[in-house]
């Protein structure tokens, strides 16, 4: 059923919070995502010409780098882009077969590969480019929020998080329930002024991005020369004079 589930008060909305201040653009999240998901519920994630020119494939997570601002205020910002598990997900409602759906219990947007006819309309409808067509299997693929990890009782509890989150070496990725205002991720979003991408399209993304912190601008003015310490003065006579004159 591709109508969106009715949102209940206190609706659970699992999603990611990505800290653009600490992301270093190392691509570990994208790599571990590919690693886990190529053998997960959407497996395989195909690669074409993997060992020659024109290598490309399906990835659920792509890390862009942007330059924001100019001059002293300018920043290089690394920006991981993946499915935002929108509340008002057009990729779900446009699906003619019911293959694309949003789970009522936790808000995760998934594709049922057995029902997908590969019309690719969902990819067209996604403003964020979160869906990539598997041209080998003829079905659409997308981020599953690692639904096969987060509820997986066969792996240690500490690892029941999306692959991108557990692997991030700088702790720039956080996972939790953004529908609960008391959750750690919701508090983090509130404290750091987290925001949604492209709000003007009204897709109501669940994922939030935390902005880079403001530059600490050094105080302006003339540089002040450091006074030499007694240790810097090699001559005994000058050292004595310095001692007398400083008194």
């Amino acid at each position: 059923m591709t109508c969106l589930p009715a949102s209940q008060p206190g609706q659970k909305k699992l999603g990611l919070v990505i800290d653009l201040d600490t992301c270093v653009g190392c691509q570990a999240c994208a790599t571990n995502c590919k690693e886990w998901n190529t053998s997960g519920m959407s497996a395989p994630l195909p690669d074409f010409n993997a060992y020659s020119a024109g290598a490309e494939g399906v990835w659920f997570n792509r890390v862009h780098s942007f330059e924001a601002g100019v001059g002293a205020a300018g920043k290089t910002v690394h920006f991981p882009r993946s499915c935002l598990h929108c509340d008002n997900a057009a990729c779900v409602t446009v699906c003619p077969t019911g293959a694309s759906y949003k789970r009522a219990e936790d808000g995760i947007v998934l594709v049922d590969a057995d029902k997908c006819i590969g019309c690719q309309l969902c990819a067209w409808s996604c403003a964020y480019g979160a869906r990539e067509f598997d041209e080998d299997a003829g079905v659409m693929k997308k981020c599953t929020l690692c639904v096969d990890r987060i509820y997986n009782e066969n792996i240690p509890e500490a690892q029941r998080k999306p692959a991108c989150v557990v692997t991030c070496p700088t702790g720039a990725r956080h996972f939790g329930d953004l529908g609960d205002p008391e959750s750690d991720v919701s508090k983090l979003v509130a404290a750091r002024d987290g925001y949604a991408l492209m709000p003007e399209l009204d897709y109501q993304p669940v994922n939030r991005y935390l902005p880079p912190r403001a530059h600490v601008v050094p105080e302006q003015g003339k540089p002040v020369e450091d006074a030499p310490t007694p240790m810097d003065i090699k001559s005994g006579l000058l050292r004595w004079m310095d001692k007398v004159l400083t008194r």
Partner: protein
Amino acid sequence: MKPAGSIVFFTVASGAGYGLLVWLGLLAGTGLLRITVGGLLLAQGLALALVTAGLCSSLLHLGHAERAWRALSQWRSSWLSREGVAAVLTYLPVLGAAAAVYAGAYPLAVALGVMGAVCALATVYCTSMIYASLKPIKEWSHPLVPAGYVVLALFSGAALLAPLLALLGGDSGMPALQVLIFGALAAGLKWQYWRSIDTARPLATLESATGLGRIGATKPLDPPHTQSNYLMREMGFRVARKHANKLRALTLWGGLLAPAGLAALSLGAASPMVAALPLVLGLLLAVAGMLLERWLMFAEATHTVTLYYRGN
């Protein structure tokens, strides 16, 4: 957006077929169409053949065409599903009308023909709404897109009916007049549409797509991958501006106004066979124009995902 050959052919062929069904249903019902029983059956058969060929072509775009039947299930939310349902439903009254014509039950044929015309129009409208409902593509989520699809279907249907009637030795005056009217209407509509999309504000900016506008003007620095990918090939296709302008002019003058002019010329013809010459030429130009228009519809469309890759 990448113009998919299968979809360009589908919307042109089935658009003309549905347009023809609309005119057959409405004109036969009001007695404005002077055509023999054999001629009417031939025209209905041609329309259904075009519609069916188009629908089959659309299946070529699918990754799993054998599951296409599933697309009839989500009509509550999906315009693509509604299009499928409307396309299947259209066959019923149209085949019924053809059977009634064959059997000589004319009142029934008229009623079913009108129903078929309504279904055909509804199908074209659903097709247009598939595009018009896609918010990330500003050239498609435009109020003139549904109007364009409907008017062009009616134009190409008339462009098909007029030479058919003339070749059958009948009076092609009525459909020729419709080619003239709808050709001019379509040209005005497309001109207005192009002017509108050229001056439209972007839906979103890289600053809003990344939220980095709070720091300042944003531009792409490093791409996430060095080679191409599905998104860049599918959503990143864009026709060069100078070609777009030439192709627009070709569509407008060659594909819409020239057939309209030729149809006007045919109105003064001495005999059906003389009228057939400009009308057949007009049909060929109209088909080329429709293919070009649909190709441009894709090639000129821009998607917000390219903001992340190109910054615009």
